[in-house]
Structure formats: C-alpha cells, structure tokens
C-alpha cells in the first residue's frame, strides 16, 4: 500500500481484494489485490479510467457484485468485520443503517411503480421501525433537507414525474435516511446536467458533514475529487497505483498514471491549459503490468 494510513481506525478497509468474472470456461480478473482504507467521516475518492474496476469495488463493498463476479481473495472489513461472506440476513441488517448507496443513474434507480413518499418511508419503517404516519412526516423532513422544491407534492408523485436532479436528491435522502456510517456514491453526478451536478455535489458534501458519514466516492473526474474528497485512491486495471491526501495527489502525484490523469482533467483555475489524453505507451505499460501480475498470481483459472 502507498500513502500514510488514516489516523483513526478505518471504518472501511478493503484488503488485497481479488475479484474475477467467471463464465464459459474463462476467468477474467477484474480486481487485482486492491486495497484502500477509509476513516470515519472521510470522503474518499476512487478514480480511474472506465473499466478500472471502480464500480466493482463499490459493489463488492455493498455485497451486490453481479452474479458472475466472484471474490477470490482478500477481504472487505467494515468496522473491523469481514463483510465479504455475510449471510442474506446479516447483509440486510447492515444495509441502510450501516451502509448505503447513492447510485449513478437517478433515472432508473427509483422504482417506477411506487410513489416517492412510499419509497422513502419504506426505508424508515424497515430500519427505524417507524409507523406509517411517523415515516411519512420524516420523509417530508428529509425532502426538505435535500432541498426538494414542493416536497409535499413530490411525496405523492411517481419518479418519472420529477426531474433527474430531483430524483438524485430523493436518492440522497434515501441513502442518508437511516444515518449510515458509510455511503458508496458511484458517479452520483455523471448522469446530471452540469449546473445540477454542482448543486448535487454540494448537497452530498453538506449531508456528509452534517451526518458525519464516510463516503466512498467513485468518479473518473479529478476535478470533482479536488472539490470534495479528503483522500484519493487511483485505480487502474483493478490495481491501486497510488493513495494519499487529495492535495498531495493533485499537487505532487507520485505515479506517472496519476500525473497523466491530472493532465487529462480540465482545470477551472487554468482554463487555457491544453488537455492531454493518457499516453498510449503508459496504458500499454500498465496493461502489461496487470498481465504480469496475473501470471505471477496464477489466476487464469
């Protein structure tokens, strides 16, 4: 592992996680010994190009990796407990109050068949044992907290009746509803308009600060990372290339790939800079390293 360990005991500790997709006699490694630690109340960025395995780490943490994906080694420690092999019942107990998700696509992540109010109230009733009126009242409060306009009306509406930005606010309200200690946010703003992106980002940051939750913030945008993350992990080919304080990573990146990512990110303070894509030679070198890693670990199946 690179980078200094967090001061407090980590709330989440992904240790040497190996995950592969099995299917039709093939065995495709996706995560190659990925590790990261998140301290209480820390916002931890997970960056990397498309296909790096960012989403897969987030899903493995929540235990919702797709069925062909198998965790073949390592562990995910949540508050010191390995959560990679929980029973259905144990996992359910952990969800909502322990961990939550802010999904990538607000358009498809709410159930089209239920009213917004019912979907928020469901979580409250399930985990906090509230009765219907109490849950309804709390749902209204939550909508106010995430700055949904006309919340009384939204409670009675169906998902397709409100905009994408409003839906994402609803999903944020659901994620924070039971005060979880850790939230996985998987590119929570990429599906939104640029102006809405900024507001939603600010909202996530504010809710996080207010509730003191930790966030695993998956993104490919270092600009977003610089805005809200305390620490960052850089992922490529399922391997962690670099971890550290956001400032240190942005100002003095150690790994060539991190430097390349920064060069590929538009900067608001220096808008005139030319953006350079990640050099092919570097990508080729990293891919070769990944294959060498597979060979060394004999994980071809």
């Amino acid at each position: 592992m690179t980078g200094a360990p967090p001061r407090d005991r980590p709330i989440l500790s992904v240790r040497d996680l190996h995950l592969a997709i099995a299917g039709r006699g093939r065995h495709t490694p996706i995560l190659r010994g990925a590790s990261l630690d998140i301290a209480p109340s820390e916002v931890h960025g997970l960056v990397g190009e498309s296909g790096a395995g960012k989403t897969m780490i987030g899903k493995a943490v929540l235990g919702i990796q797709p069925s062909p994906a198998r965790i073949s080694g390592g562990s995910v420690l949540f508050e010191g407990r390995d959560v990679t092999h929980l029973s259905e019942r144990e996992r359910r107990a952990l969800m909502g109050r322990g961990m939550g998700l802010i999904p990538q696509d607000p358009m498809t992540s709410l159930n089209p068949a239920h009213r917004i109010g019912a979907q928020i109230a469901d979580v409250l009733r399930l985990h906090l044992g509230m009765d219907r009126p109490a849950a309804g009242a709390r749902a209204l409060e939550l909508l106010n907290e995430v700055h949904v306009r006309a919340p009384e009306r939204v409670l009675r509406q169906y998902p397709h009746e409100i905009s994408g930005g409003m839906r994402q606010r609803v999903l944020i309200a659901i994620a924070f509803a039971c005060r979880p200690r850790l939230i996985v946010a998987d590119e929570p703003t990429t599906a939104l308009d640029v102006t809405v992106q900024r507001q939603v980002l600010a909202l996530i940051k504010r809710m996080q600060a207010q509730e003191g939750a930790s966030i695993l913030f998956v993104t490919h945008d270092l600009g977003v990372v610089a805005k809200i993350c305390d620490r960052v992990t850089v992922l490529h080919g399922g391997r962690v290339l670099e971890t550290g304080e956001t400032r240190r990573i942005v100002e003095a990146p150690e790994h060539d790939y991190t430097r390349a990512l920064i060069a590929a990110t538009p900067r608001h303070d220096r808008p005139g800079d030319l953006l350079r894509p990640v050099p092919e030679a570097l990508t080729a070198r990293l891919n070769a390293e990944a294959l060498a890693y597979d060979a060394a670990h004999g994980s071809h199946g």
Partner: protein
Amino acid sequence: MAEAAVSGARRPRATGATTRRLLTNRRVVLGGAVLLFFALAAIFAPLLAPRDPVEQDLLLQYVPPVWSDEAEAGYLFGTDNLGRDILSRLIYGARIALFVAVAAAAAAGLLGTVLGLIAGYFGGWIDITISRLVEIWMAFPAVLLSIVLVAVMGTGLHSVVIAIAAIDWTRFCRVVRAETMAQKQQDYVASAVTIGLGRARILWREILPNVVPLLIVLFTLEMGIAVIVEAILSYVNLSLASDFPTWGGMISDGRKYVNQAPWLMILPILCVIALVLALNALGDGLKDALDPAMRR
C-alpha cells in the same frame, strides 16, 4: 387525486397520461367497446333476454331472423329446431363464454405468474426445474390435452376452466419469467437490495408491480383463447349439456340444420369471432399503450 390537480402539477400524472394513451388507441377503444357490449349482455342477461333460453316452443320452430320475410314479431334472431329463442340463447351464451374466459385466464395467470416470478427471480436450479416443466408441458398438443382432461374430469364448466388453466399457465409462466429476469437487472432492484429489503419483499412488492401492465395484456389475450377453447369443447359436447346455451353448443346443433336454417350456426359463430377479435385487438392495443409506462 384532486389535490395534485389543484397544486398545478407541471407534468401530467402517471395515471392521467396512461389513461390518455389508452383512450387514443383505436384498438383499445374498439376492442374495449365490443368487450363491454358482451360483458353488459352477460351481466344483465336475465333482464335483457326476452325469453327463457331453454324454453322450447314446438309450434315456433325454425323462425327466421327479423330480416327475413317470414320473421315472427318478438323473435329478433328467430328460433332453433326446438323453438328456443336464439337471441336469448346468445345472451346467456355470452355469460358462459365470459365466465369461462375470466375464470380460466385468472387461474392460468395466477399459476403461471407465481411460477414465472419465482423462476425468473431466483434463477439457478429453481429456474431450471420450472423451465423444464414448462417445456415438457408444452410438448403436448393443447387441444388434445384439454379434451383428455375434460374427458377424465367429466364435463361441466369447472372442468373446462381447469383444463384451460392447466394448459395455458405455461404461456404466462414463460413471459413473466423473461420479464422478471429483465426487471431484476434494473437499477431499482439493486437500490432495493442496498436499502436492505428482503428477497420476498423485492419480488412481490418491487418487481411484481412493474410486471402488472404485461399481465393485463396477457390476461386479455388469454381470455380470447379461452373463448375459443370453450367453444371447441362445447362444440364436441365436452362442456355443458347441450340444453345449456353455449355458443359452441349452438354452432354444433346448428350445423345439423345448416341447409334449412343457416342462422342457427352463423349467429353464434359471429359472436365467437366478434368477442375473440375484440379481445385480441384490446390485448394488442394495451401492449402498445402500456409499453411506455413499463419502460420508464
């Protein structure tokens, strides 16, 4: 809801938009109207039928329908070989046809939907078992199977309903299974898992409501099939005793007198065709009209 309208919702409400789409779909409106016509006839048969459908009048046999020169006043569609009033028999026949259609579609739908949901959601050996069962079941020729089933259970409406349900649950099962598998991949299901909902709860409360539009379509189409099967079974005298006014029985009886009184056979055939076409049109129209609602 009145409040929603007053508060001036900018977007149309889900139900409002869907209703509008339904009402502007020609097949839905036309099919629905014809179905409603038969349904009203069936429900209010005792009030609408001018005569007792089984009462014979041997002095008034083979009275032709009203458009013929030899028509009798009060007998709109004439009488049959036993002097029974055709119109009254057709009206009561609608009752039997629709009862069988609704009951059989409901029974087939219930069984097929439950098994389809379970197979599609749980996958693995559960899915394999249910899917194999469906395949084996479907290998039997349907009409033959229904005739055998009724022959074994004895004639009567309940046998007809059970026979149709026993054959056609596979239709629901296959479609519902595929739809459940598709719904399971949707993000809202992953969200439901991450808020800690249990599997049973996700299947019945989260996925099933999203399968309902599809079920409505399947149900309508199945009613059409049931009407035909019931007609076939009563045509071969496996439904109700021929005394009872079933359309299939009327067709079967009328066939014997097709030269002297063709209306005995033609009128019930027209009823079967009209009702089946209406149900098919309604089902197809609903498929188009409800589809956008399902894909949202």
